[in-house]
């Protein structure tokens, strides 16, 4: 157990062994189809299939360092997720729309400056079927910001887009035709 590779393996084995039992035992229940990734400013995307299972669609956990870790397994229950985010101190607008639709907001609000935005998106894109966001509530509450989390999808495919943070006044989500190309199932 001398090299970096050996020591890393030992630590990673511990990570696997210490994972919660309900996560370790969770088995796939349906085929996932169609993975695509598109990045916009401070944005990540993931595509996943809604699974026919009793597993939660998302989880919102406040971590010891004050950050909020949001894990989205599939794009379902937008208003429930929105409520959970707000309860965790992150003002949020969450809208999961039909395939081919996106939100138009009037007024549209303004993107924040790049320098002081803190938003971590992990596991987005091809085969990263679970989207993980790490958010810092103070970035939102004290600066008048709102997290915009938008998704579109239907049938076997879901696309979730973590939109940029916005400041200023913006309107409610009005579904309009999405400029994104429709996703085609992978064979």
């Amino acid at each position, binding site marked *: 157990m*001398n*090299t*970096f*590779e050996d*020591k*890393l*393996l030992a*630590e*990673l*084995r*511990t*990570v*696997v*062994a210490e*994972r919660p039992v309900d*996560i*370790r*035992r*969770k*088995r*796939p229940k349906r*085929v*996932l*189809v*169609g*993975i*695509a*990734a598109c990045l916009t400013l*401070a944005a990540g995307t993931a*595509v*996943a299939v809604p699974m026919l299972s009793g597993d939660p669609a998302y989880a919102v956990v406040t971590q010891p*360092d004050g*950050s909020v870790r949001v894990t989205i397994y599939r794009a379902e229950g937008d208003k429930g997720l929105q409520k959970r985010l707000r309860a965790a101190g992150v003002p949020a607008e969450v809208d999961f729309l039909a395939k081919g639709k996106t939100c138009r907001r009037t007024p549209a609000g303004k993107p924040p400056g*790049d320098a002081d*935005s*803190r*938003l*971590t*998106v*992990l*596991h*987005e*894109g*091809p*085969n*990263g*079927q*679970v989207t*993980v966001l*790490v958010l*810092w509530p103070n970035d939102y509450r004290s600066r008048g910001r709102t997290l915009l989390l938008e998704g579109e999808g239907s049938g076997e495919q879901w696309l979730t887009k973590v939109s940029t943070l916005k400041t200023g006044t913006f309107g409610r989500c009005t579904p309009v035709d999405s400029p994104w190309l429709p996703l*085609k199932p*992978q*064979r």
Partner: protein
Amino acid sequence: MTEIAEIGRDPDAFEAFYTEHIERIQRFVARRVDDPYLAADLTADVFLAAIDAAGGYRANLGTPIGWLYGIARNVVSAEKRRHARELRANRRISGRRLLTADDVTRLEERIDAEASARALLRAMDELPPGERAALELVALDGLSPQDAAQVLGIRLPTMRVRLHRARGRLRSQSLHLVPTPTEMTS
């Protein structure tokens, strides 16, 4: 071959998976960063992300190496994006903490060995992002076009078009890429 779904819940299954892929992932990272400490961190991040995402792997959507390269590509891309600071803050295993002087030397040797690949990546900077991503996975990382298409979430014909166009552009810049064996036979 390791059952991917098991690596997130069975340490022995994970070890088999890790042993099978650690070399390729280290080379993948070394082709993209030139700091041995950052390379150690990113290598740890790739396998942590694989542990978390293993439950969602579906064999009918592609090979394990395609799946893992997709994760590695996201991890390296995330590091390069502006929220890298937060990513480091949330890192569960600091790979660099595990390094000894000998490890650093070995990582530096690996990074030096990939210097030409990094130079080639820089030469590809002028390509459109989609074509660049396609070419780097096939020509530098040695994936088959099919696996690379899986990584990028595109169809195989689209991948072939991107490769063709990318090569055409590079040819016009007098840069040539040697096709990999998998590419020639697929």
